[in-house]
């Protein structure tokens, strides 16, 4: 009998030692796709009571409650991140609570891979793959947005000033990993950008 078992798309990849920012995969992250109308008060209230925090209404912002983090993706879409072990239970709970409200909550933990970049110069490394100016004041910690990164669709989350998570669809994980590894190789520092703040 075959048993379904999760394997991270970057399993077996070694954490490179030749990069000037550290990079690793976060495979233990669970994700839930939540859709519903921000104008629907019942939906917003139910989501809040299930998650412990108000769904962010401001574009590109996040809300955090304990180990649950909610990303604003669009006016009617949020991505909830939580520990992988909790994701299915949370998605089920949300669906149950939201029964009768026009909405959708689904566990998409296996849909995306998460790569964490850490260290001085992370913004510069990410900017090698996108046209976004991350040195700009518009991108403080807590910012989240989707972007075109190295020509593929990606989700950017600025966790702290020098810590950035990049979410890509699972099938792009290896490509993105290889791109970042090259972009972050020691000796390729650009340092033309002012220190991000």
């Amino acid at each position, binding site marked *: 009998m075959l048993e379904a078992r999760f394997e991270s798309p970057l399993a077996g990849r070694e954490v490179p030692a030749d990069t000037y920012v550290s990079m690793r995969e976060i495979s233990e992250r669970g994700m839930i796709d939540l859709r519903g109308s921000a104008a629907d008060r019942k939906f917003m209230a139910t989501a809040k009571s299930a998650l412990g925090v108000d769904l962010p209404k401001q*574009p590109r912002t996040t809300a955090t409650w304990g180990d649950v983090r909610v990303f604003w*993706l*669009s*006016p009617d*879409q949020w991505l909830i991140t939580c520990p992988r072990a909790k994701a299915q239970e949370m998605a089920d709970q949300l669906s149950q609570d939201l029964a009768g409200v026009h909405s959708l909550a689904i566990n998409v933990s296996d849909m995306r891979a998460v790569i964490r970049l850490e260290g001085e110069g992370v913004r510069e490394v990410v900017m090698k793959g996108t046209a976004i100016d991350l040195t700009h004041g518009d991108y403080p910690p807590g910012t989240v*947005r*989707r972007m*075109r990164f190295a020509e593929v669709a990606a989700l950017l989350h600025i966790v702290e000033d020098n810590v950035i998570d990049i979410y890509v669809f699972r099938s792009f994980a290896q490509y993105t990993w290889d791109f970042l590894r090259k972009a972050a190789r020691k000796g390729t520092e650009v340092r033309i950008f002012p220190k991000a703040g």
Partner: protein
Amino acid sequence: MLVVTCPVCGIEGEEADFHYGGQAHVRRPATTDPVNIKDEEQRDYLFIRHNPKGLHFERWRCDRGCGKWFHAARDTVTMDFKAYYGITEMPPLELQQQAKGTWADYFKSVAKAK
């Protein structure tokens, strides 16, 4: 390169972060009167598009951002975006008044229908 601003999420991005969706305000005749639809109307709906020199109205999608469709008014000569507005909205009045040719006719017909 065009620099586009999404009116829904507010991000500014280059053309490739967005997706061009063709001419705006194309009305599907079968929506209002499916029984008495004429061949000419269906032809116009499917194939006939304005191609103005100057002010034009288009649909765009925030492809690598919030994923929402929106409308944009663009000058096809200078490539300047004149306005962004919601996908269910009509252009700002002053732009409707600036429109020429087929677009002017269209906005007049819409105003009349109201």
